[in-house]
Every structure is written in structure tokens, then in C-alpha cells.
């Protein structure tokens, strides 16, 4: 497969719409107020109603229903609202292709679960920027969806090989000698001019050792570990034939002990019961 051709194909992928772009920008601006975020989101009433539906879902466990977006922002925070908007957009634009090998809703579930595990892991190990981890988890496999959207048969071929040889998805990509989903993600987020954190975790989560000494070491380690947990416990389906291997240094670098890992798994288990609304995010 020619890289040049691939890049041209990427251009045909959807860009984030104006409202989502503004939501992301506003949520990343320290000076933005709840009123500001409410204003930009309100341009798309469909978006707002879907966000409110998620906000009222079991996942967030609010004591009463919220009916206004400002209330949702006040209660859940800017970044969580942004994450919900990003989930709605990604699901609609990227998890809508045909596959004979993978159930797309299970494929989507995998991303949501990795997002959730990322956030829970951040909590357990005391990494304070947990909402960013949700977004990184949500978008870490965007490269695979690009393959699915652009070349559905190629996607199926990779999955089929991985399953037959009982190897991780990325190993099958290497055997087939095609650009990896990490590369597709990198190209997409560069094109979208997305935050570097999201780009790095999506394009390096199979190679955490390459940025072990960078500022992104913690997030990439968390996402790699979260992917492993989701695969190992079969939360959703990411098209892999076997779970990835977690490099030994990740446990040490994150300060994970058998006890904290056990706590992490319990927290993940109780949260995974509450992600139904996220799976069925478009409603109806």
C-alpha cells in the first residue's frame, strides 16, 4: 500500500464539525467559563440533548436529573462534557462501517472501556489529570476505524489473520506489511491539529518504551495498560487475536503493586456495569 495514496485517502475523512471543534477549544481554554462552553455547544441542539442524556446516565451517578447544559458543565466539569461531545462525534463518524469479522458495537465498546479504565487507573494511581486519560482512551484505536472506513476489506483481513495466528492486531498489520493503525491515527490527528497528548497516545500505545522519558510517559503507560486490561478481560472487541504484552517497566513506572492492581480491577468491574448509555450513545 502506498503511503502517498493513504495520505490522500485520509483527506477524505470527516473533519470535526465546527461545534465540536469549538467545544474542544473552549474546554481547553483555562479562562473559558461555563457560560462560554454552553454558548458554543448550544449551536447544535442535537448535540446538547445527547450530552444531557449521557450526563444523566448511570455512568455519572448524579443525584438528580440535569436539564441544562450549564448545570452539566458545573457538576461534571468542562473536560467531561468535552469527552461526551467527543464520544458522540467519534462514534457517529468513525464507528459506522461494515465488517464481517467484528461487531462494530463491540468494537466501539472496547474504546469506551479503555477510556473508562484510563480514567479509573488515573484515580487509583493518583494521576490528577484523569479526564484527559478518558479522551486518550476513547481515541487510541481511531487508526483502526480509519482502516475500517477507508478499506473495510483490509480491516477484516487484519482481524482474520490476528485471530487465526492468535496474535495482536498490530502484529498482523506488520505481517501484512501495511501502515499500522498507529500511523493512521498520527496522520489524522496531525491533520486535525489535535492536542499532542491525544496524538501521542493514539500513535505510540504499542511502543510506550519509545517515550518512556518524556512528559507523556504516564499517559502512554496508562493507555497501554488499559488496553491490556480491556483485551485480557474481553471488554468489547478490538479485533485482536491475543492480548498485547505489557512491558515490565510500566508496572514499576506507574507504581502499581499487586494490591493496587487488584483495587483497579474491582473499580473497573463496577464501572463497566454502567457504560450501557455510552455503548448506545446515538440513542434510539
Amino acid at each position, binding site marked *: 500500500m502506498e503511503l502517498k495514496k493513504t495520505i490522500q485517502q485520509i483527506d477524505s475523512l470527516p473533519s470535526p464539525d465546527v461545534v465540536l471543534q469549538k467545544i474542544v477549544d473552549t474546554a481547553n481554554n483555562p479562562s473559558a467559563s461555563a457560560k462560554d462552553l454552553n454558548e458554543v455547544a448550544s449551536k447544535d441542539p442535537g448535540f446538547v440533548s445527547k450530552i444531557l442524556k449521557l450526563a444523566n446516565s448511570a455512568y455519572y451517578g448524579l443525584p438528580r436529573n440535569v436539564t441544562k447544559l450549564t448545570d452539566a458543565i458545573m457538576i461534571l466539569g468542562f473536560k467531561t462534557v468535552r469527552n461526551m461531545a467527543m464520544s458522540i462525534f467519534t462514534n457517529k463518524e468513525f464507528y459506522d462501517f461494515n465488517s464481517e469479522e467484528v461487531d462494530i458495537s463491540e468494537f466501539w465498546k472496547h474504546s469506551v472501556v479503555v477510556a473508562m479504565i484510563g480514567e479509573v487507573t488515573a484515580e487509583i494511581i493518583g494521576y490528577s*489529570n484523569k479526564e484527559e486519560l478518558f479522551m486518550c482512551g476513547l481515541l487510541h484505536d481511531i487508526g483502526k476505524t480509519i482502516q475500517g472506513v477507508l478499506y473495510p476489506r483490509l480491516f477484516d483481513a487484519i482481524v482474520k489473520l490476528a485471530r487465526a495466528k492468535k496474535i495482536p492486531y498490530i502484529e498482523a498489520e506488520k505481517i501484512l506489511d501495511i501502515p499500522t493503525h498507529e500511523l493512521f491515527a498520527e496522520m489524522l490527528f496531525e491533520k486535525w491539529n489535535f492536542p499532542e497528548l491525544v496524538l501521542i497516545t493514539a500513535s505510540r500505545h504499542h511502543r510506550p518504551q519509545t517515550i518512556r522519558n518524556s512528559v507523556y510517559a504516564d499517559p502512554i503507560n496508562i493507555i497501554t495498560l488499559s488496553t491490556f486490561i480491556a483485551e485480557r478481560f474481553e471488554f468489547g472487541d478490538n479485533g485482536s487475536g491475543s492480548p498485547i504484552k505489557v512491558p515490565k517497566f510500566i508496572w514499576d513506572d506507574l507504581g502499581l503493586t499487586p494490591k*493496587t492492581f487488584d483495587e483497579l480491577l474491582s473499580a473497573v468491574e463496577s464501572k463497566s456495569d454502567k457504560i450501557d448509555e455510552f455503548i448506545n450513545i446515538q440513542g434510539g
Partner: protein
Amino acid sequence: MEETGNSINRFLITFASFSRELNTARNRVDIAGAIEKVLGRFFKLEACLSAAYDGVKWDVFKKDEGFPFDEEEMKSFYDLALERKSPSFFPLETNGFLVILPAVKSGKLLSSFFGYIENEDDDEFTQELETSLGFFSYYSGIVLENLRLFGEVRESARLQEELRKYFEKMLNSLDEGICVLDASGGFVFKNQKFDELELEEEIIEEIKAISSETLDQSAGQAREKEFNQGFFSFNSIVLAGGGEILVRLEDISNTKELERMKQIDQMKTEFIANISHELRTPLSAITAYSETITESLESLDAETLKEFMGTILDQSNHLTFLLDQLLDFSRMERKNLQIDKSRFNIVALIKRAKESTRELYERFNTKIEINADNDEMFVEGDEKRIHQVLINLISNAIKYGDKEEEERNVILTVAEVEDSEEIRISIDDNGVGIDEENLEKIFEKFYRIDSSLTYEVEGTGLGLAICREILLEHGKDIHVTSKVGEGSHFEFKLDKAKE
């Protein structure tokens, strides 16, 4: 929207203030106060509540009057904090907000701060504030957890201290002095009794010596020893783990004194039995001979009569000797032994003393030899008393001779002590000797080596005690060395008479 640069500045300033507040926080109330202070710079907080809730019981540790919710109503808000583990501004149905700031550590909710804000102002709630509060949430959790751990450590230190005091109280209640020494002989521990004993240096040295022996031999030591300060018993053990030695010591002077008095009492009883026997023997002889003479005076020839009368005289003299000794002893007890000093020739006195014991040395077939530098050596002293001493020592030397020995010898030596104004008198024999155990005791009153009532050797058991007392009154002492089976050596010194 403001400029980003300004915002970062504002965030850093707020965070710096919060960390300063936490820096002096000593407990969770202080932390709640710090949160209240920092949040109060963004909003007008009407009333605050800080609490932990385990699903059953509330633990409210800071609550302002006028906080609008009761505990029942707060449950759902606490659940939200538990679920989200992130700060939240909850719009109230009435008016205003409840700001929720959970203290989170390792995914666990430790407690939560709740602040009631009456007037809403959307503009104040910025992304920057959300980020800041997120940090506050984590940092207050870490500080809280650390304070809790610190409290645990302090509590365990307190318990240890209590335990230490308890054991110390036990050790201090003991009547024994207890101390622990390290391998280098330094004191690691002393109980109260040990300090109270105010031990003299010699005893401290003894303790160190015992400790070092205990360490060398890896075995506990036990001994009793007399010091100026009293009689002490020592017991040592190696403390578990090695390297340190515990020594117990007790002043057993009273016990020892009691033992000694009991022994003296015993000796007195024996003495009375002994002295009765000693007095009866000559008396029986006198009575028997007197009766014979009275009844058979006509049939006795002059020779026999003279022999009988001689025996009566000898026995009377012996009786006098015994009574004199008893009298001396009685005086000695009353500290009333009179010394009447004069200048006399000691060599001549020794010769006289030898003559006085003629009957005895002939009976025991003992050879008495006198070695003197000169025939005339004048000393200062009570001639009569020194005579008594000499007779005693010579008699003993003869009486305690060795039956197995072919030739029984007693050697009396008089010599000037070099570089001194004294003359040494020594009595050597080749008799049975005295074992080490008895060597010091022989000068004790009533003491006889064969204290069992066998009467193998006659005597009151007072002789040597009187000898020593006489010499002590002269400002001198008597010394003995001996070897069992080889013989004994007694010696004392007297001042040379001034010219």
C-alpha cells in the same frame, strides 16, 4: 474570555496559597480550613461542612452554623463525591450552589468538603478553576492520608512509650539493682534501684568484669563478694540477641550478717561443750590424784607421791591457763585487753616460751629450733602478752604436727626486717597444714579446724583469736601461709626498742 497568560498566573498564585496553607495543616480540620480560605477568594461561601461518611455513620469534623442541609439530605451529595471523586458545583433547586471538593487518595474518598454558595455567578466558574480544584482535591487527599499515617506512627510510638514505661515501672519496683551493659562495657540501662544503691567504684568495676566474662563465655555468671559498701550478690545473663549483658545485683549484707551470727551462735554452743570438756579433763585428773593421795597416803612412797603431786600441779597450771584464756577472751569481748608496754629481749622471751612448752614438745616428740641474728634483740611491747602469743603459736605448731612425719620440727626465727624499725618473729612447722578455705578463719573466735567435737586436739578455740587481738593492740597483725601436708608459717612483727 481572558488572556491565557493571566489565567496561568492566577492559577499558580492560588495553588501557591493552597500549598502554603497545607504546609501548616496539622489535622483534617486545618485542611478543611485551608480549602475554605482558598475557595473563599473565588466565591462568597455562606456556610461549610467537612465530613466523612461510610454509608452508615457520619463523621462531621467541621460544620458552620447555618449550613442548609441536614445529614439525611447530604447523603446524595456525598454519594456524588464518592462516584465522581472530582470537584463539582451542584446547582441547588432553590438558589445557589453546593461546591463539593472531595479529598481523594489512590481512588479512595477520604472525606469531602461542602460549601454553600448563595449567589450564583456563571462567569466565575472557569475551566481554570475546575483544574485548580482538581489539584486541591488530590493534594488535600495526599496530605490527609499522610496526616493519618503520621497519626498512626505517633500512636504506635505512644503505645511503645507506654509499654516502655510499664516495663520500667516493673523493673524499678524490684528490690534488685538491674543494669544492662553493651559489649564495650558501657551502661545502656540502669533501673532506679541501681541508681539508689550509689555503688562505689570497686563494685562498678566488678560489674564490668562480670559483664565481660559473661560475654567471653557466653554464659551467665553468679557470684557473691564483699566490698566496703557491703556484701553483694551478682547474677548476669546474655540478653537475647547477644551483645548485651544484663546484671542483677543485690545487697545481701544483712543476709550475710545473719548467716555469720548464726555461725557464731553455733560456734558458741560448740565452744561451751568444748570448754566444759577442756576444763573437766584437768579437773578429773586433779580429783583422781588427790583422792588416791588422800586414801592411800601411807602406802605411797615419796617418789610416787612427788609424781602425783607434779601431775596435780601440771593440771592446775593447765586449768589456770584455760581460765586465763577465758578471762582474756572476756576482756577482749569487752574491749578491755590491757597492754602494758616495756623494753625486753625477744630472744630471751622465745627461749622462755620454748621452755614453757617443754612438757608438750617432749610428749609430741617435736624438735624446737631457735634461729636468731643475735642473742639480744630488744623490742617494745607487753612482755607477758607476747609470751602468751608465743606459747600459743608454739603449742599449735606442736599440736597440729603431722603424725606421719618421721621428724616433727618447729623452727622459731627472729630477724631484723630490712630498712625498717621492726623485728620479725616467725614460727614454721612441718605439720598437717591448713587448707585455703580455713586459712582466714583460724583467727576467728571459737574457730577450730576440727570443729566437730572429736577433741583430737585439745584447746579452747580462742588461742589464735586472742593472739591476733593482742597484736592488734600493739598496732601489728599476724599473718599465715600454709600448705596442706607440708606445714604452716606464722609470722608477726614487733617494733624495735629505742636505744
